[in-house]
């Protein structure tokens, strides 16, 4: 397998100190940090269908040792996450080597390794009262009036069990102090979650950050269509600033200090 050879080369030529990939352990495909000392372990390297936030693990390692050179098995979404983390100075592009995986199929490559290739199934009750996973924000806005949209989002939000899984799994959530843990914004130890404020805090913070990997939606025990919510806020960012998070290594409009941008308040229904 070419991937194994390439990863071994990276380690043996000291281009990276650790290579983050997947291997099978006890029947589960789980991430693993391969090192030069155990380079033969790389024979077990797999491209797992189960995606884990490898970029977040890279951030954890970098925090422990900022000079550590890390190799990563990168899907398209990982690549976007890495670009965003470079933008926000969480990772140094000089310390990261990627081995790209064939994931999202295109006209050039029809085969892909991703659990997302099959669309999610939305049940009949969720379709009638909540939100279809596969709906697009534009379509959703066009099909439902504001009252209907509010009731549908509230149906989804009130299922929240406040596990913080969406934030914990998010590869681009790296803040040391999180607004979701601020006692004045979200009261600690209280269930049910304060809706919709809990989700709206996270949604506003995902504007210009979310790279649409879908890990949050995967981790949500309440089946809240988070991906669509963050797509909606990101659409607003790309409409106003022309910025798509993770597309390039460029400064985000939210990381530039000293430049004022005037926003005109507009009703939600336009």
């Amino acid at each position, binding site marked *: 397998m070419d991937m194994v050879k390439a990863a071994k080369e990276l380690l043996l030529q000291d281009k990276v100190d650790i290579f983050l990939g997947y291997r099978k352990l006890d029947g589960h495909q*789980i991430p*693993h940090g391969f090192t030069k000392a155990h380079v033969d372990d790389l024979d077990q390297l797999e491209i797992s269908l*189960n995606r884990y936030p490898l970029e*977040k*693990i890279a951030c954890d390692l970098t925090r*422990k040792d900022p000079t550590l050179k890390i190799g990563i098995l990168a899907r398209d979404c990982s690549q976007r996450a890495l670009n965003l983390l470079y933008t926000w100075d969480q990772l140094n592009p000089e310390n990261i080597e990627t081995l790209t995986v064939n994931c999202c199929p295109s006209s050039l490559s029809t085969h892909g390794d991703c659990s997302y290739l099959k669309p999610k199934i939305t049940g009949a009750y969720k379709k009638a009262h909540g939100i279809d996973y596969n709906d697009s924000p534009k379509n959703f806005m066009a099909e439902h009036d504001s009252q209907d949209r509010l009731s549908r989002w509230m149906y989804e939000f009130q299922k929240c069990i406040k596990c913080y899984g969406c934030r*914990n799994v998010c590869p681009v959530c790296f803040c040391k102090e999180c607004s979701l843990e601020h006692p004045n914004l979200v009261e600690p130890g209280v269930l049910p979650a304060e809706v919709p404020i809990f989700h709206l805090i996270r949604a506003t913070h995902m504007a210009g950050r979310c790279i649409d990997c879908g890990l949050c939606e995967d981790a949500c*025990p309440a089946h809240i269509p988070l991906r669509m919510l963050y797509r909606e806020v990101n659409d607003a960012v790309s409409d106003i600033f022309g910025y798509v998070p993770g597309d390039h290594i460029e400064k985000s409009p939210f990381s530039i200090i000293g430049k004022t941008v005037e926003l005109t308040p507009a009703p939600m229904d336009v």
Partner: protein
Amino acid sequence: MDCEFVPSVCSYCGTGCGVLFEVIDGRINRTLPLKSHPVNQGKLCIKGWNLHEYINSYMRLKGPLVRENGRLEKATWDEAVNQAARRFTRIKEEYGPDSIGVLVSAKITNEENYLAQKFTRAVIGTNNVDHCARL
């Protein structure tokens, strides 16, 4: 630097969700849900997500303590077990086996729970045994 992942089972309740510990240089740094686990299918509750915090907590009890003269003192397992056995025997002889009750936990395994009820019924000689997850 060493980074490995260890699949495990959440120790908080009897559901048995699969978790994955991110171990960096021998220390658990983060907990992730085990995506391929049939029980939780890649989801966790807030307690499961924060397993590493209690494992690494400085307040965590790592050895037995015995209360002597009103203060908890560090002891060896042999001392602690002997002390407990001695006091239980005394209570049982003085007030009868039904003066003792045993509460077992969802945080220990099925087998350990079985042993605890066996111990209560066969050794102590009472049916006063219950479990926190007996909903």
